[in-house]
């Protein structure tokens, strides 16, 4: 989903920075509060961040004959919410922009928006909705993470379409063209990402369910039910 360096003309790259900054500021404050009040959750935050690191470094082949990579942001969005996730995505995107020339510093705002904000917001709300209708936790995590990954790429296609409307047919035509490149390649990868995140979720429930309860990700009842079903 990286928009490469220099590939967003003025004024689009400034606009995406302006949109991304409030989320990052709020994320920073939430992170500060987390560090002060829920110190036991910090290792889990590190794991969620590391997860974004690993998944976004894996370029996987898709069925369409091109490669793309998962985002890995679903886990952190479900655990800590979209604002904190935007900070994690920022760190990964800066790493890739500086060391790999993958993405770019001028397009950072747009990339943070698609990977760190749009996708995670979708993951967070889907998960919360699923929790409300007491969907099976793992199915819920799978759906949230998969759709979030896919949505990230749809947003990227939208960002490029807005900046580069086709000469004939305008924004919609070029949106469709970018969608073909990004979203279709992404479908299998999104499914794989969803499955892996659901699996990691299981391990977290295994070792530290108390943190999930204190982060309001799962109720104590839900943890008990899952533990009972596992034995």
């Amino acid at each position, binding site marked *: 989903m990286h*928009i490469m*360096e220099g590939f967003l003309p003025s004024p689009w790259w400034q606009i995406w920075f302006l949109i991304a900054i409030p989320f990052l500021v709020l994320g920073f404050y939430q992170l500060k509060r987390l560090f002060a009040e829920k110190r036991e959750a910090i290792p889990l935050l590190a794991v969620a961040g590391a997860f974004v690191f690993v998944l976004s470094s894996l370029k996987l*082949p898709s*069925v369409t004959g*091109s490669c793309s990579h998962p985002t890995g942001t679903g886990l952190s969005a479900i655990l800590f919410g979209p604002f904190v996730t935007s900070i994690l995505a920022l760190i990964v995107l800066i790493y890739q922009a500086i060391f790999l*020339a993958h993405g770019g510093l001028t397009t950072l705002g747009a990339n943070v928006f698609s990977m760190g904000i749009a996708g995670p917001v979708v993951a967070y709300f889907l998960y919360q909705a699923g929790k409300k209708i007491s969907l099976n936790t793992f199915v819920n995590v799978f759906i949230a993470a998969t759709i979030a990954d896919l949505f990230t790429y749809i947003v990227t296609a939208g960002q*490029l379409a807005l900046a580069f409307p*086709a000469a004939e047919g305008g924004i919609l035509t070029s949106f469709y063209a970018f969608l073909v490149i990004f979203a279709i390649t992404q479908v299998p990868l999104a499914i794989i990402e969803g499955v892996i995140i*659901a699996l990691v979720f299981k391990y977290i429930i295994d070792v530290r369910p108390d943190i999930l309860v204190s982060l309001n990700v799962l109720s104590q009842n839900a943890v008990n039910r899952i533990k009972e079903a596992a034995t």
Partner: protein
Amino acid sequence: MKYKAELIAGTVILTFAIIFLVTNAAIQQNLGEGEEAWGGADGQAAELIESGGYEPWVAPIWEPPSGEIESLFFSLQAAIGALIIGYFFGYYRGRQKPAE
């Protein structure tokens, strides 16, 4: 069943691996000389934009000088992440009370 989630994950990944092998065989057969399949989607989008006559207005401040060095940084990124994940899961598991 205790390992249901692992089984499902394994099956999904295996399915896509098989699909990859089948499509790859088909793609390799139809590939002309000098062409390369399995490029990055990011690059394809960039090509599409450049075909419209757009020139990127800034270049990256630093680019990995070769594909090998690029993959070094990608592996480094994965290694850092995997290290942190493994460390904390090991830490949590080690602190669990032994099962009675």
